[in-house]
């Protein structure tokens, strides 16, 4: 059985729902968004990921209409949004603070947007009941927002923003106020609701796990620019820069000089008297150019003896062990003082573990395990 993969961004005939065209936003001398061009397609779950102050919230607020671009154009469904006020956009937003109206019941909160549409009363009732069912809040509909829990408030906020059936739903750190367990559950709920309603979701988050879990594509941002846009696996496995590799998950960055060995093979010389790192990459590097090897800790094997036939093998000493239960992270010092993190799954019980502090171990990884990055 083959599933149809959802990837409208690879289809040149597909029309994007949202288009940022050379958008710049300045606040005085501070540039929040720097000449940004990006397409987002219908039914996508698009995540804007970055540290605070990277411009992700500004991008979202421009889509909602609370900010206007200093330069450039934003199009939604082909229409220039410059002159369209927030209340006339087919866009709804779920606020970080949820922004539930404290003086209205949960039912009235959800009905609020529908009443503004001059929808007939019977239809409003039907729609609110639908939304309550979708978010499993039916039994709480008569309560005030402060009479329900944080997770329930989050669901009410979602129901309220979905009630008007927007073309585009913006979610500003929607799960930030929830604790870890509830957040993980809610992530799957969000994906489920997004699929059921077929709405395009744009989510702003600084939590990379959240972005990776929910999104069809992730845009990693820094200083008002999008550094890389790709599917979660590609962002993780094929980062285009040290910044992205470092921002998403844990990574070892080893700096060295590149030497071409074959069409797509390079040797990275990283320390005097050490075997260079052998790696395959699609990047084209000049002879002797500075390059960075990005290596995920879980892609490194750790062994007492030098593994036979390993393409890359380095000897080092265990300095620190981080025990996380299911896995352990070993901090290994390589000759020349470079520290490398390697992860191993704890398939055996602790008492049977092989490695301890100060042990000499061999780290090894395959030809394709590492990414070679220019910057």
């Amino acid at each position, binding site marked *: 059985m083959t599933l149809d993969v959802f990837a409208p961004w690879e289809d040149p005939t597909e029309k994007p729902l949202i288009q940022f065209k050379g958008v710049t936003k300045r606040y005085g001398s501070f540039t929040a968004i720097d000449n940004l061009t990006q397409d987002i397609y219908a039914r996508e779950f698009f995540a804007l990921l970055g540290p605070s102050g990277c411009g992700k919230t500004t991008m979202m607020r421009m889509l*909602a*209409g*609370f900010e206007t671009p200093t330069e450039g154009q934003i199009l939604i469904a082909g229409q220039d949004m410059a002159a369209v*006020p*927030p*209340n*006339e956009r087919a*866009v*709804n*937003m779920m*606020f*970080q*603070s*949820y*922004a*539930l*109206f*404290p*003086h209205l019941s949960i039912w009235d909160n959800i009905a*609020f*947007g529908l009443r*503004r*549409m001059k929808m007939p009363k019977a239809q409003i009732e039907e729609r609110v009941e639908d939304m309550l069912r979708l978010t499993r809040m039916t039994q709480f509909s008569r309560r005030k*927002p*402060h009479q329900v*829990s*944080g997770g329930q*408030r989050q669901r009410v906020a979602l129901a*309220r*923003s979905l009630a*008007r059936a927007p073309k585009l739903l913006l979610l500003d750190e929607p799960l930030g*106020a*929830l604790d870890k367990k509830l957040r993980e559950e809610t992530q799957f709920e969000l994906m489920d609701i997004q699929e059921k309603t077929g709405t395009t979701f744009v989510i702003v988050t600084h939590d990379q796990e959240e972005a990776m879990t929910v999104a069809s594509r992730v845009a990693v941002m820094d200083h008002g620019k999008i550094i890389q846009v790709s599917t979660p696996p590609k962002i993780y496995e094929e980062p285009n820069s040290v910044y992205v590799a470092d921002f998403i998950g844990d990574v070892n960055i080893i700096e060295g000089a590149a030497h071409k060995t074959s069409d797509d093979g390079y040797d990275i010389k990283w320390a005097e008297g050490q075997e260079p790192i052998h790696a395959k990459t699609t990047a084209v590097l000049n002879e002797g150019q500075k390059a960075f090897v990005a290596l995920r800790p879980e892609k490194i094997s750790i062994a007492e003896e030098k593994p036979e036939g390993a393409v890359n093998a380095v000897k080092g000493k265990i300095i620190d062990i981080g025990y996380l239960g299911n896995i352990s992270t070993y901090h290994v010092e390589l000759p020349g003082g470079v520290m490398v993190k390697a992860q191993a799954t704890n398939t055996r019980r602790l008492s049977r573990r092989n490695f301890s502090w100060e042990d000499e171990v061999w780290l090894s990884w395959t030809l394709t395990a590492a990414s070679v990055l220019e910057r």
Partner: protein
Amino acid sequence: MKRFTWFNATSLTLGFAFLYLPMIILVIYSFNASKLVTVWAGFSTKWYGELMRNDQMLDAAWVTIKVAVASSTLATILGTMAAYVMVRGGRFMGRTLFSGMIFAPLVMPEVITGLSLFLLFKPIFTQMGAHTIILAHATFAMCYVSVVVSSRLVSFDKSLEEAALDLGCTPFESFRLVTLPIIAPAVISGWLLAFTLSLDDLVIANFTTGPDATTLPMKIWSAVRLGVNPQINALSTLMIGVVTIGVIIASISTKRAALRQKADEQAAAG
């Protein structure tokens, strides 16, 4: 730390005595049977009865209430608008100057406010009276209202208004349907404050009144100049009652607003 000490008890008694003894004496003497204000001749409510038959006093009371209701309503509308612009208007040229100017009348001597209003009204209105007192009271009460309302607006989560816009409200609808209901307790206490201020103002009313409009404080003032009359005591007692009730309602509604705000904040913090 021990809460009750003789020092604390003494200072509390002295403080309250200083504040309330004159009023208590006034209230007690309003129930005096004697015509002489300083001689106690037994309990009686006859001065209240006489007060009710004193048409001049009743007229003055009626004028005072009309002026207080109209001026506090006007002050509340203007003060709320001013507070909204100051808190929500963002940065504009001279914002600090404007907000300073709104609060300046709080510390302006009443005589100066009264005189300047008199100089303003004199050439505009052919005759001064209740309408000019209303305008004058609205002018000075407005800044009290805007202080009360803006303190509520400062802590108001702006994303609530954005949510209203996002859900299809025009800016005015967002104010009417979301902002106003939430700041209503502050608006109400602002109105009550303005009402009590107008009720007991003598100086400004004196400057801006005309021949047909005499408010109660003015009536009392002129009556006292002819000698203190037990009726005045009775009237003053009633006024103390009205003002006290107003202040109590205002402080309860402020307190409830604060509690509710706390609940909202806890709700937001999740």
